[in-house]
């Protein structure tokens, strides 16, 4: 057989093989996070410290996010919830006074939203908690965060690759999230 022919043939196969392998790797394992808000940790009007409340004082998540077990939303606690403690606790801190003020004249605090999903995507906290998924699984080591940051990239691949695991017995339907 012709030398040139053998060389090209080999080259072609090698090239195409490499192409496919890299493609599949790119697609399925290694997923660059551009366009996603992973690590997003905006300044909050009140520097609420999860590491203090959850880490040190061991307050249950559901104490503040009290509706998360009943509904799809993990609600931001009402000011009244904060005041349950902060009527007595740390009343001297300026931020607490700010909170107190807002509470007394019936106002509220404008928190900056950290976790955002694209449009037409519905995430149901209730379902996941009922399945025994830890808050930390998606929100990361929240008990160590002084400032809350987005732990997971919340990409579709991230959702799906967890739903996919047979042991999770999670649905893979489009209409599970998209409707």
């Amino acid at each position, binding site marked *: 057989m012709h030398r040139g022919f053998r060389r*090209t043939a080999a080259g*072609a*196969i090698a090239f195409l093989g490499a192409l496919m392998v890299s493609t599949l790797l790119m697609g399925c394992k290694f997923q660059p996070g551009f366009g996603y808000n992973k690590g997003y940790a905006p300044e909050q009007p009140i520097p609420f410290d999860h590491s203090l409340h959850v880490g040190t004082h061991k307050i249950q998540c559901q104490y503040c996010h009290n509706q998360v077990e009943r509904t799809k939303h993990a609600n931001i606690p009402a000011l009244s919830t904060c005041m349950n403690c902060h009527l007595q606790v740390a009343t001297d801190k300026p931020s607490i006074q700010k909170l107190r003020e807002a509470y007394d004249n019936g106002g509220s605090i404008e928190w900056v939203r950290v976790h955002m999903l694209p449009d037409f995507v519905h995430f149901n906290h209730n379902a996941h908690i009922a399945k025994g998924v830890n808050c930390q699984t998606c929100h990361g080591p929240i008990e160590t965060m002084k400032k809350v940051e987005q732990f997971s990239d919340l990409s579709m691949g991230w959702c*799906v690759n967890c739903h996919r695991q047979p042991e999770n017995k999670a649905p893979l339907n489009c209409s599970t999230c998209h409707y």
Partner: protein
Amino acid sequence: MAKYTKGIAGIWDDEHMILKAARKTREAGFTKFEAISSYPIHGMEEACGIKRSWIPYVTFVAGVVGLTCGLLLTWWTSAVNWAINVGGKPFFSLPAFIPIMFELTILFAALASVGALFYACGIPRIDPPVIDPDLSSHKFAIFVPQNDVGYDEAKIEKMFKELGATDVKKTEY
């Protein structure tokens, strides 16, 4: 391919004469010489003793590779990586994948062949030396590189003249 070799070239302006000249040059024992024309001349291959092109093999292999790629791509994406129930059809619905496989076969084969052609002809090449601008229009030339066996300018020039070359020039090619 980029380096050029010096040599001697004879110019003709008739198809039949250059065919004859090529035959003679070959009989004179030269192997590395090139016959240059503005269009493929019937019978020039055997005149210069050129073997049949090997490109078809590349085409074939590339085609096979394309086919396999098509099959693997469709099968892996729709039956393995994420099997989705589409219209109640089987996950691996081979008949529906055939068009894809076919097109990929053609695409790979065609592009590979052209690639092979470029490789074989050493193109693209930046502004190669031109022996005579009319070679791409209506004249013909035979070029014998100096590294060819029994290269002897005087002899070759004489031979070319005898063969009715309108002009003989030392050049590089």
